[in-house]
């Protein structure tokens, strides 16, 4: 495979107490994680007020991170094709929906059902952002973040336009938590563009390697986030970007494949 080269023009992040890219950088330079309630969730300004309260948690997480990334990149989100990736999807709705179906299937709420699709964040986001571009929702188990990076970089290279990538997982609920564990909410987003511009933070050179790689453990300050499967996958790249020096990150991308990402500020 030819190396895919893309440029990071914006980064968004949301986790309890680490509510944007600046906060993550502060924590990495020795700052404390801000206090936050156990049930904290973001209220992304891009969503209409009713949806800011009522939208499913993946929509809130992904929209908040995506919005931050687009703002940092100085891009109108209407102009960005988007890729949403998640290891487990909406664990809260899956839990509620399966519990309702087991009790009395005719009680299933129509809104809950249409919100249950894996592309609900993509749907809400494109409506809020007035975005008619292609939006994709993907999942690839423990390779979900690598698959998202590869898909977004592929779209950038294929079409020569910037692409928004948002990766998220919410907290697992009910019996599902045992088989689809996730203990803390987390979302990260990137605007990837085809050429270096004023907003560019780093260049990424992406190519595959055979074999799998254990994700590099993040610094101790971020250890709490590793309860989230997307954070485990995404933090090595985020940490490398925060360090603002050349680095190579290796992400598991399949049963026997990894993705190497060379980061150059």
């Amino acid at each position, binding site marked *: 495979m030819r190396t895919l080269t893309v440029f990071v023009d914006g980064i968004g992040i949301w986790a309890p107490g680490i509510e944007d890219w600046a906060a993550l950088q502060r924590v990495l330079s020795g700052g404390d994680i801000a206090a936050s309630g156990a049930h904290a969730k973001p209220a992304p300004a891009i969503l209409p007020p009713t949806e800011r309260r009522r939208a499913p948690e993946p929509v809130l997480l992904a929209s908040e991170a995506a919005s931050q990334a687009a703002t940092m990149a100085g891009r109108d989100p209407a102009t960005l094709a988007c890729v949403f990736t998640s290891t487990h999807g909406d664990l809260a709705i899956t839990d509620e929906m399966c519990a309702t179906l087991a009790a009395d299937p005719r009680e299933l709420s129509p809104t809950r059902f249409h919100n249950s699709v894996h592309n*609900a964040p993509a749907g809400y986001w494109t409506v809020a952002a007035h975005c008619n571009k292609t939006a994709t929702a993907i*999942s690839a188990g423990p390779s979900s973040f690598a698959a998202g990076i590869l898909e977004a970089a592929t779209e950038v290279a294929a079409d020569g336009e910037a692409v928004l990538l948002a990766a998220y997982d919410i907290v697992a609920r009910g019996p599902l938590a045992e088989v689809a564990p996730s203990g803390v909410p987390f979302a990260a987003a990137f605007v990837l563009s085809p050429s270096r511009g004023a907003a560019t933070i780093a260049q990424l050179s992406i190519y*595959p390697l055979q074999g799998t790689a254990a994700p590099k453990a993040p610094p101790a300050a971020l250890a709490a986030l590793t309860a989230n499967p997307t954070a485990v996958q995404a933090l090595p790249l985020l940490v490398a970007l925060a360090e603002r020096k050349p680095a190579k990150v290796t992400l598991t991308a399949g049963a026997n494949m990894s993705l190497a990402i060379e980061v150059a500020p």
Partner: protein
Amino acid sequence: MPTRIAPLAITAFTATSALGHGRGAHADALRNDRGGLRDNDFTRATLPCAIGRVDGLESAPVPDAFGEYDCRNNRLAWHGINADGFLDAARALIERHGADRVALIVGTSTSSIGATEEGYRALEDGRLPEHLRKPALHTPHSLGLFLEAVLGTRGPCLTVATACSSSAKIFAKAERMIRLGTADAAILAGIDTLCDSVLFGFNALELVSSQRCRPFDTARNGISIGEAAGFAIVERDGDARAPRLVGYGESSDAYHMSTPHPEGRGARLALSDALARAGLAASDVDYINLHGTATPKNDEVEAAVLADVFTSRVRASATKGFTGHTLGAAGILEAAITLIAMEQGFVPATLNSRDAEPIVAAQLAIEREERTIRVALSNSFGFGGSNCTLAFAAGAPN
């Protein structure tokens, strides 16, 4: 506007649905106007509707070696991949290109959620029962993991889950990866299975008909849900007789989660992008396999786009009256139906429908027609305003 792409050869494909196992069964049913819908005999709770069910899955587990993936959706995948020698073709492809050069891209909306539903009906002290306590049965990527284990591919592997456009969009992803050299070939799969979530979910949205669905009929009143497995192999090169993927268009409505844009904004964009990538004009299109779910609103919007963009020269039909709406599998199932129609020279009927929406009466084939099809489109639209149109060209004649 996107630029023209180099066509990709579709060197193998197959389909399994309520019409039967493999291309022959589909061709036979389509040629004889024989639908696969039946009265709902799937749900435990009463739900008067028609369904497109694949027989025999209950007693056909996946092979023991893949036991951790055993659920209805993966059973249908296993059943489907064994039709038309597809599994052998996929293995030969991997042998030819190398396992690391073949991408595995799957589309599904239900994935294995039927197994999660089953687990919740049989909780033991608040836990999933032991035989269902397997992570690979409760992930949106269950299908991808299963097929990756079956095939042994070592290239990119991902699940696309954009509701009813899922397994149409996988063709677009494969084209980009192959064009950029990320892979030399791709194995594509779209599988969705009947489960309570979709049957009772669409019912709660009042989108399910109590009868067999009637796409584009003035009296249409909702969908019939079906299940299906479709597979395809796409490569840069192939026999001249192999059909080609020549274009695709993807877009977002940016309007509503479960209602289409009233003027079909996203559908028009997907269509124009597909034609642009194919280097074709609307007047070049011989056949369109419409999304045609048979809900009043979906068909109204799609009919307006059809009437606006195409003359009566085009023949269009919706085949969900044969198979039901197979949701995440609809994209690849209807691509397969389109390729069969192309190969055999006929336009499938819009089964169960009698009185076409007047604005598309000129374009819509209510009854089957014998016709040479050189260029065809297939539409897939989904919740979240996710749209995809695929463009195909026939292979050289034998």
